């Protein structure tokens, strides 16, 4: 209720609001508890019911680890080798962004649902948010920074610029990495849900492109231009 008041410009409205909140101190029931007290008591109840929850969350024999644990991992990123010592909890995405300062790959959902974090590992596109850096000992990672540079864009990057395949740009690095690897998947004959015959050789039709790129969400809805950019490159390579 209070937050509504913050947006009000009319002081009279604010006063009205103030009045209403004072009214909420009136005891509404015969327990003698005011609403404010009731809310505080309610929070305590929630906390109390959460306790068994926490107790159940861990089986009794499990040792409790509170200190961060470290692990060593050697990664090749965009052609450069790195030896990192990281908290074991570090995802590949966080290792790239926070430790190697390669901030082109974006964190959208951190749950595998949006594709903004898509990078290419050993030639295959993956969601870097749902994999630990420590699981990539010896792997070769290509991020958007490794595909091209501002003076020497990758053809897919050029096509996105030419076709205006973005608005805010947040999903773009993921879209481009995904698209580059996706075209290679078609070349390698990897089937998709868009194929009527699963044993056939895939071709890049509009329906195939949309199906194969469905792991990359664009909140700005730049899809038609993204599809145009990919189709332009596909025309040359697939």
């Amino acid at each position, binding site marked *: 209720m209070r937050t509504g008041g913050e947006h009000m410009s009319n002081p009279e409205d604010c006063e009205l609001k103030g009045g209403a909140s004072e009214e909420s101190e009136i005891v509404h029931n015969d327990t003698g508890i005011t609403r404010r007290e009731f809310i505080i008591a309610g929070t305590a109840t929630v906390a109390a019911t959460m306790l068994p929850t926490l107790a*159940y969350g861990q*089986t009794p024999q499990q040792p409790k680890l509170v200190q961060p644990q470290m692990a060593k991992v050697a990664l090749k990123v965009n052609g450069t080798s790195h030896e990192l010592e990281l908290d074991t909890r570090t995802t590949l995405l966080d290792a790239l962004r926070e430790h190697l300062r390669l901030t082109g790959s974006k964190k959208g959902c951190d749950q*595998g649902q949006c594709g903004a974090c898509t990078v290419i590992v050993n030639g295959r596109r993956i969601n870097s948010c749902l*994999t630990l850096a420590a699981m990539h000992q010896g792997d070769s990672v290509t991020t958007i920074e490794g595909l091209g540079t501002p003076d020497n864009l990758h053809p897919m990057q050029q096509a996105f610029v030419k076709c205006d395949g973005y608005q805010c740009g947040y999903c773009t690095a993921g879209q481009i990495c995904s698209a580059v690897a996706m075209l290679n998947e078609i070349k390698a004959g990897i089937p998709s849900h868009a194929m009527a015959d699963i044993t056939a050789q895939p071709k890049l039709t509009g329906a195939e492109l949309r199906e194969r790129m469905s792991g990359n969400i664009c909140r700005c809805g730049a899809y038609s231009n993204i599809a145009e950019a990919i189709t332009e490159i596909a025309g040359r390579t697939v």
Partner: protein
Amino acid sequence: MKPFTFERATSGADAAAAAERHPGAKFVAGGTNLLDLMKLEIETPTHLIDVNSLGLDKIEKTPEGGLRIGALVRNTELAADENVRRDYGVLSQALVAGASGQLRNMATTAGNLLQRTRCPYFYDTNQPCNKRNPGTGCGAIGGYSRQHAVIGVSDACIATHPSDMAVAMRVLDATVETIRPDGSQRKIPIAEFHRLPGDKPHIDTVLMAGELITAVTLPKPIGGRQIYRKVRDRASFAFALVSVAAIVQRDGSGRVALGGVAHKPWRIEAAEAEMPNGAKAVVARLLAGAKPTNENAFKIKLVERALASVLAEAKGA
């Protein structure tokens, strides 16, 4: 995420033994389900055993004429395998109907079988959920239950198993091969692998502590027209509301398994006798005794229509 120690296992026996040494341990394969749940602290392992270097990433012919799929074979590789596409088409179709291209490049055969439910209450740690926290109640019963199970449910849990791949494995009569910490191995028929919730919905499968899946085997191909039909809220990258995996032979006989309706891939072999009599007859047997909620009762009709369309397609070819 809670802190955990990390090790890379080098053999199956090694991994299973490591799991026994660390009571709070979990295996990590693709990580696409486990890490998601660890971030939310729904899973809180204190030790992770990375099983990606076990060499269990091959697909081989078995002496019986079937196929042995290593536990670490990625969903993309399995869907693309020539033998799978030709002889077990329903499996390829189910795989490519699941998740996204990026996720399928990480997701493994074993991890896919063991993925946990997508019940929204299971994911929301502010909500009661017997599967996440035994004894706290079930938020979905009497709550938002549109996606939930209609059959095999219990008073404790009405969650569904979300895998597409597992439904195809069920219709193909797959077998799950494992190794235990003491080095012994066993073979579990897929029909017995996933559990119904009963009063222990926090236990999804019959696997024991530290038991590692090494492979999934498929029996000799049985031919027939193989179709996986997934019905969902959007055309791609969404979990199934219902799905049908069917193998239909020329004479109209065949097999059917369902996804999105139960705590496990749902198949009743006896119902398959009705195949020549059409979808309505099959579903009447297959979903006999169903206990849908008001919100998900539509799934029964949806299964019937999906199966009718699958049978029509099979006939047409």
